[in-house]
């Protein structure tokens, strides 16, 4: 058993190298990389605001001095062969140095660690809520299989399955935040930026002048703690609901089917033959067995540290990891992209192993193998 997990841990290394190598290759092979972008900017800057450069065609413009070009190549590590550059990158990653962002001119690590708590807060809350709702719902559906309750609750599951979480997000914004129908929640972001954006309770609660800065704008930091919580909660409601819906259908159905399947097993018959009550048979004997497939999902909580779904973050304008990743791809900011990718891969791979450990903890058949 220990040997198995050690083996799995060791296998993380080749997989990690494989994934990052392929990603590195893609960033290198495709045209329109950061260097071209930079060069274009320099040219456009030189040619003045008039030049409308299309698709990397450097029409007219000023010649870029050879040294400047070299300088830039060096800065982007493009002067070295691909494999050398990759292993240099890998070596730096091993010391947790992910390089500097081209666009932000900031260390990648600090960019990531700033956004890290934001994504974590949203992702983890949604994840936990998902389990808190789906497990009991799945159980209830299994126990009332074929009854009206099962039928009606299936509708929610179907909605969850047929409408992706981020699309649901846009709908929620239209309904609850646009003001066209309701105006309960803000349109996005993590907290309010002006006094009028604050939830009504908070506005009633705090003295307007006390929380304004010298420019008569909201200084969020001045808000009392409890109001900060309310404000953040107000901002979190819709995105967290989306995160929850993302896994809702799959989790509920998995729980339901797993429980139903276990209820048909021989050991359930034995338990009833002993004279145990249905409650005990279902909630002790069967439930523990049916939770085994769900435990697998818990390991992914680790990858949730980075999980910010960029689609949901994009919809709700949450400046988290997903948003950073998405904008970095658009901006060809490959050091950031590679940094996020590297951390993400490690967390996913280790998360898978943790899933297996959890599996082994619930199921002794595996533990004692």
């Amino acid at each position: 058993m220990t040997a198995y997990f050690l083996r799995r841990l060791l296998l993380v290394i080749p997989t990690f190298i494989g994934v990052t190598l392929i990603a590195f290759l893609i960033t290198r092979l495709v045209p329109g990389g950061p260097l071209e972008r930079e060069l274009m900017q320099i040219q456009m800057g030189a040619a003045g605001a008039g030049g409308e450069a299309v698709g990397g065609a450097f029409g007219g413009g000023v010649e870029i001095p050879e040294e400047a070009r070299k300088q830039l190549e060096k800065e982007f590590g493009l002067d070295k062969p691909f494999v050398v550059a990759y292993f240099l990158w890998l070596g730096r990653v091993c010391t947790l140095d992910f390089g500097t962002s081209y666009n932000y001119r900031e260390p990648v690590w600090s960019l990531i660690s700033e956004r890290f708590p934001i994504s974590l807060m949203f992702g983890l809350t949604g994840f936990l809520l998902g389990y808190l709702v789906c497990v009991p719902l799945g159980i209830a559906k299994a126990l009332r299989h074929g009854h009206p309750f099962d039928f009606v609750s299936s509708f929610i599951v179907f909605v969850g399955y047929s409408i992706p979480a981020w699309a649901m997000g846009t709908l929620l914004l239209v309904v609850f935040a646009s003001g066209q129908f309701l105006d309960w929640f803000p349109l996005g972001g993590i907290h309010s930026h002006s006094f009028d954006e604050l939830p009504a309770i908070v506005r009633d609660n705090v003295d307007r002048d006390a929380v304004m800065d010298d420019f008569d704008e909201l200084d969020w930091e001045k808000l009392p703690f409890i109001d900060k919580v309310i404000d953040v909660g107000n901002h979190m409601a819709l995105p967290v609901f989306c995160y929850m819906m993302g896994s809702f259908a799959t989790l509920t159905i998995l729980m339901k089917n797993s429980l139903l399947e276990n209820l048909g097993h021989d050991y359930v018959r034995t338990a009833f033959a002993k004279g145990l009550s249905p409650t005990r048979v279902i909630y002790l004997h069967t439930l523990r067995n049916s939770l085994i497939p769900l435990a697998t999902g818990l390991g992914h909580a680790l990858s949730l540290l980075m999980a910010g779904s960029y689609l949901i973050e994009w919809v709700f304008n949450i400046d988290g990891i997903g948003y950073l990743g998405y904008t970095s791809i658009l901006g060809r900011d490959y050091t950031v992209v590679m940094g996020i990718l590297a951390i993400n891969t490690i967390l996913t791979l280790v998360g898978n192993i943790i899933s297996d450990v959890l599996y082994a903890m619930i199921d002794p058949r595996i533990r004692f193998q």
Partner: protein
Amino acid sequence: MTDAISPEATDEPKTATEPVLSVRDLHTHFRVEGGIAKAVEGVSFDLFPGEVLGIVGESGSGKSVASLSIMRLVPDPPGLIAKGEILLRGRDLLKIPYEKMRKVRGGEIGMIFQEPMTALNPVFTIGMQLTEAVRVHEKVSRAEARDRAIEAMRQVGIPDPAERLKDYPHQFSGGMRQRVMIAMALICNPSILIADEPTTALDVTIQAQILELMLAMKEKKAGSSIILITHDLAVVAETCDRVVVMYGGKIQEVGTVHQIFEEPKHPYTRGLLASLPTASTERKSRLSTIPGNVPSIMNPAPGCRFSNRCPEAIDRCSVEEPVLHQLPGERFSRCHLVEEEALGQVDKEKADV
């Protein structure tokens, strides 16, 4: 009423003539794709204190369903006990409230199953599964229940019981798991043990051990009885006192083990016995066979269930369903020929065939 349920009350010796369990006209059906499968149709038999009753039959004969019906453990859906009475010392188990039935399960009737591999919950220790069986029926402390579990495991011959309580089912071999099942079924001293193909999944040498153990456990408690469900006639011959032969969801013949094996009345029983190679059959000889296959219970033809395979069938057999006819000496047989012979009628039709 409640007094009668408590385990102490069952220890009173009963008169040999009074059955401890009577099944009367039991019908158990299954709703399946394309109709209703009548797995058990009008089964009646008695179980007397102290006896080992064998229910023997091939696949699809309804023997397992009958035993599950006694415990009200037929999965519903698709199963359904459509009709009948199951009288445990006069109380109809099909009518008592669910909470009372729970007391019967494990308390008065213990049950063991065919697959010891899957019949135990894989994620709980043997100790937990044994102690919960005690604690559900008796008000005992945790420690007391544990002692009882250790004692039960010792009795069924599991070495080092105190240590093995901490083990999980998959750490036991098949034979040991079946021992655990027996310990679990008997831990609350039920007076009846229903064993549903308890040795089918086991090797012969282990089968011998388990059968021996079951009989030894029965001997330990006066007046307790066993219902042994099996397809293996040889196992029946060696362990049972009385035998019920089932075919196509119906009882075909009932008698003592000597009656059944020495002078079988029903053509099906005779066919089964003749088709078994034994020490006395001539080697390499053609075995006597029952032609055809075990029928599906889905769409039974009218008349006797066995008539399409019966070498002695007469015209009447495929039209008219024979009754379970009582013969002298508590014997029953469901066959027109037996009935006619018993009534002293000389069978003309038979002569024609």
